[in-house]
């Protein structure tokens, strides 16, 4: 049951976020972003705060299965949403294939951008499988057909995730490995 509006004030609300399968009912000031709710209320610090303005992708999580920048989402606007963070990708001790590939290909240096890169890649692979085009997809590519993830496609589709360490070549390789 979703909480009632009884405990709500003009500037805060009680809401439920389903994070990695677990419901969390929180009383949050409306100014709280999803990123801050995850890090400071739910206690999951995998999603990182890089720029806090949608410019770097470090805060990328999956919201109802789609990748989004959690720093620009208001938690209050996501009552009832199902959120997956990097902590929720593994199946017990078994890493998600994208996580495995990042380890195998050494697709990181400092690791700060990595949770965002991995969540973004998981979302991106699903988009490509559903036939979502990118700016570099040829116009004649049949609409709705899965996109072939060349390195060029991967770079374009992952351009919302910056890496200050410049680990891009191995990030592209790791994602390419999962895509094939």
């Amino acid at each position, binding site marked *: 049951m979703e909480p009632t509006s009884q405990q709500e004030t003009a500037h805060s609300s009680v809401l439920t976020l389903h994070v990695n399968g677990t419901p969390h009912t929180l009383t949050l000031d*409306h100014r709280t972003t999803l990123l801050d709710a995850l890090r400071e209320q739910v206690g999951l610090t995998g999603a990182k705060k890089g720029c806090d303005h949608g410019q770097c992708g470090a805060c990328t999580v999956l919201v109802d299965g789609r990748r989004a920048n959690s720093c620009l989402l208001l938690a209050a606007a996501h009552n009832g949403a199902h959120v997956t963070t990097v902590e929720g990708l593994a199946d017990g001790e078994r890493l998600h294939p994208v996580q495995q590939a990042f380890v195998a290909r050494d697709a990181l240096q400092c690791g700060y951008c990595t949770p965002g890169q991995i969540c973004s890649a998981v979302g991106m692979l699903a988009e490509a499988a559903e036939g*979502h085009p990118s700016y570099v997809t040829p116009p004649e590519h049949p609409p709705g057909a899965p996109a072939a993830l060349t390195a060029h496609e991967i770079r374009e589709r992952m351009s919302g995730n910056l890496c200050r360490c410049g680990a891009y070549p191995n990030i592209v390789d790791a994602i390419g490995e999962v895509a094939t």
Partner: protein
Amino acid sequence: MKPFAYFRAESADEAIGAFAGHPRAQYLGGGTNLVDLMKLGVAAPDFLIDVSRLPLDGIDETPDGGLHIGATVRNSDLAAHPAVRTRYAALSQALLSGASGQLRNTATTGGNLLQRTRCTYFQDVSKPCNKREPGTGCPAREGVHRDLAVLGHSAHCVATHPSDMAVALAALDAAVHLHGPQGARTVAVTDFHRLPGDRPDQDTVIRPGELITGVTLPPALPGTRCGYRKARDRASYAFALASVAAVLRVEGGVVRDAALAFGGLAHVPWRARAAEEVLRGAPATEETYARAADAELAAAEPLRDNGFKVPLARNLAISVLAELASRT
């Protein structure tokens, strides 16, 4: 950020009703621009009316063969839609050239049209800016304006409109549907954004409390091709320095129909009517395309540091028209 009340509207009427009596309310779409501006202190609504989940998320064929796009359709879904991919390729390409995969999943059609300029002074509350605080001046005119306007600017503001989507919509003759306290109305997208004049605080003709409910595209004419091309400082995930959306129909080596719009050059998506005049009926050659671009860009008044935009836009127009012609 200032504290604010929040309400998730379930219908357009409920959203408009909630606005009544709240002069400092704002509608919330995906929030990718508004939440950013609230963090910066540029926007300070006391009430957010969340319209992101209104049942306006459909993309539907219209009886005349056009397309109706609901205001809450996400940019990524619009770009991927088969009808948009095949009949309105310029729109799909424009959307896909903008922002990032994450942002496009969140951004809505309505919010994209109403996103605000990326002028750095506008985004910095410690600086004067006529758009943010009318009457304080425009430091960009003599200051940092490399990204800003070359066409249609005024002494009061030299900002550009940052949307790629709106440029494609301008070339495609789209119409914006509004619903407000005084009822519903429809405005051509080319009349929706306004030049700065002496009121740069007003980006568009939208009235307080009016909600964008959707956008319609007229039928794509048989034989036309359309496309979008964008130049920016890096290969992806950057705003346009200049961009071009073009619609072209060539028959027997002659341009029969043409529509052209520039992005990144003005306070509005700039529909290039003078260029279209030159194109219509002229041989489909690069010489014609160059003449057309020159006819439009003759009106350009570059600022100290953005004169490069004029040849850039010219080259973009020539190349996109040549490419469209080669595909017909």
